[in-house]
């Protein structure tokens, strides 16, 4: 047997490099919070944060494990409605409602995931779509509990001891702290044994089975994790806007989440952030388009998939590298 070679630096040095990213990220968030005093900008940033958590949650499922979901808004909605119902109807503290919301999302994801994740390709897309539709109809028709189509009013704002998240700045910090947490979780997962197994399912499901990966279990687990983070996003959304209605969690919302992931780039954490930011800001910029918004939106989706199927982050890097190669040769 040959002697064991020393491990390469790049491989071993991955963890500290991540820590530097996190520190930069936190610093940037803290500074942004200090220097941006206008509540409107803080609110936009807060929405970007919530959408990023959503995009990240779907990216774990779709980008890494390669399982498309057209019903992700259902879990977002389950998170929002659970906390709304518990805090308003049952006077529960939001901080107790949060674990309940996540638990219910996990429970539903588990039940739904067992039969649904047997499906692949278009069938999976359709299965998740059907699930999302049914959940939305439940939100709309279970009037006593959810307030029905008119929506749910009066969700309390968050408070933690002396800190009130009624202030937009505090809420901004809260959401971005949650986002940082999600990023850390996602990043750790991706570079672990589980992350490699997930990516292997994406590349070749039957080769993954052949190296001993229980693909079904793993898919269900990542579906559940993804649902949990979507529920967290729903919780943050509900307590920010304090009003929710079924329209915010419909099929279009599911498509929007998919779009965020796809535009930013599948299997890319920072891509999810980029996608979520673009899709949150785009309507603000597209106000000028008003009636053209739908056309532009559909066109962007199609074009990115046709021209840059890897998404903006990876696609642009690829183009840049290709042009560099051309220059060199």
């Amino acid at each position, binding site marked *: 047997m040959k002697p064991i070679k020393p491990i390469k630096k790049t491989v071993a040095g991955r963890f500290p490099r991540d820590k530097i990213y996190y520190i930069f990220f936190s610093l940037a968030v803290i500074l942004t919070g200090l220097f941006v005093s206008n509540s409107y900008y803080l609110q936009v940033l807060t929405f970007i944060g919530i959408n990023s958590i959503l995009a990240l949650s779907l990216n774990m499922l779709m980008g890494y494990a390669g399982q498309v979901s057209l019903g992700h808004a259902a879990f977002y909605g389950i998170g929002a409605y659970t906390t709304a119902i518990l805090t308003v109807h049952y006077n529960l503290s939001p901080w107790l409602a949060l674990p309940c919301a996540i638990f219910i999302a996990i429970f539903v994801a588990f039940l739904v995931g067992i039969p649904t994740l047997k499906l692949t390709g*278009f069938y999976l897309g359709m299965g998740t779509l059907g699930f999302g539709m049914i959940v939305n109809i439940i939100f709309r028709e279970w009037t006593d509990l959810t307030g029905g189509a008119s929506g749910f009013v009066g969700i309390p704002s968050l408070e933690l001891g002396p800190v009130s998240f009624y202030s937009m700045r505090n809420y901004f910090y809260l959401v971005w702290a949650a986002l940082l947490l999600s990023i850390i979780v996602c990043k750790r997962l991706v570079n672990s044994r589980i992350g490699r197994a997930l990516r292997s399912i994406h590349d070749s499901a039957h080769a993954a089975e052949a190296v001993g990966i229980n693909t079904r279990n793993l898919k269900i687990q990542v579906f559940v994790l993804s649902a949990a983070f979507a529920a967290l996003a729903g919780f943050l959304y509900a307590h920010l806007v304090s009003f929710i209605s079924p329209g915010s969690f419909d099929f279009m919302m599911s498509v929007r989440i998919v779009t965020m992931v796809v535009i930013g780039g599948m299997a890319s954490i920072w891509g999810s952030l980029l996608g979520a930011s673009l899709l949150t800001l785009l309507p603000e910029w597209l106000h000028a388009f008003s009636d*053209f918004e739908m*056309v532009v939106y*559909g066109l962007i989706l199609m074009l990115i*998939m046709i021209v840059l199927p890897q998404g903006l982050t990876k696609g642009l890097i690829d183009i840049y590298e290709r042009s560099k190669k051309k220059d060199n040769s």
Partner: protein
Amino acid sequence: MQEILQYIFSGITNGAIYAIIAVGFSLLYNSTEIINFAHGEFVMIGALSLVTLWGSFHLPLPLAFVLTIVVVSGTGLLFERFAIRTVKKPDHIVLVIITVGASIFLRGIAMLIWGKDAYSIPPFSSNPPIDIAGARLLIQSIWIIVISLLSVVALYFFYNKTLTGKAIRACAINKKAAWLTGIPSGKMVMLSFVLSIGMGAVAGLIIAPITMCSYDMGTMLGLKGFCAAMLGGLGSLWGALIGGFILGILEAMGVGFVSSSLKDAIAFVLLLLILFIRPGGIIQSKDVQRF
């Protein structure tokens, strides 16, 4: 009894529409293994084109019919040429997102052309409804049922009796082998798109007189049509037909005997059940789950 008959009439009318949309899904899936999430939007374009050609320009009905089908199929051809054939990496996820994007795009375009208002046009013939045992059957319903059945029969003959039809089927079974025997598989894919989307246009045509047509009418119809196709067995012509009628009648019965607020849920619950229990659909055997 009178109620049940009325529910059945209502169910068959809607069922025929679902069926013909489902046939469109099945045709395309059979030869390309693509599920076109934008199919419902072609139904919408068909309906609105008829509104313009027949309702506003007052063209004779048969001419308006043909023109509408030509216009919609032409749109479908462009869609295939520019959105599907140009895809570098035809993964499922990529195709799902492209067709979803196309559906939003087409809806946006339709909104720009026809505006946000709804339109209505009179039925093809203005006879009064027929009274059968106290239940009313619309003449337009008869039109719908007859046209959808005729289309399916015509398609059946096209696929089984004509050379082109057989060529498409050959491509669907094995592209390479078909290519070796000299069948231009690229053209066959295009033809499948045109046929599938043409079926969507027919669905739009027959539905226009009984409902209100607007730019956002297509999505739900498309989804219900898909549920019907899955129910019958994706890829099967007769399966799509049967699936459509079953879905239509179950919905009407559901409204009649359970609750109208859960009407939309019926289709999706059926969809999930069929996906979980028997992904091949009612018609096809269990082991056909191709992907």
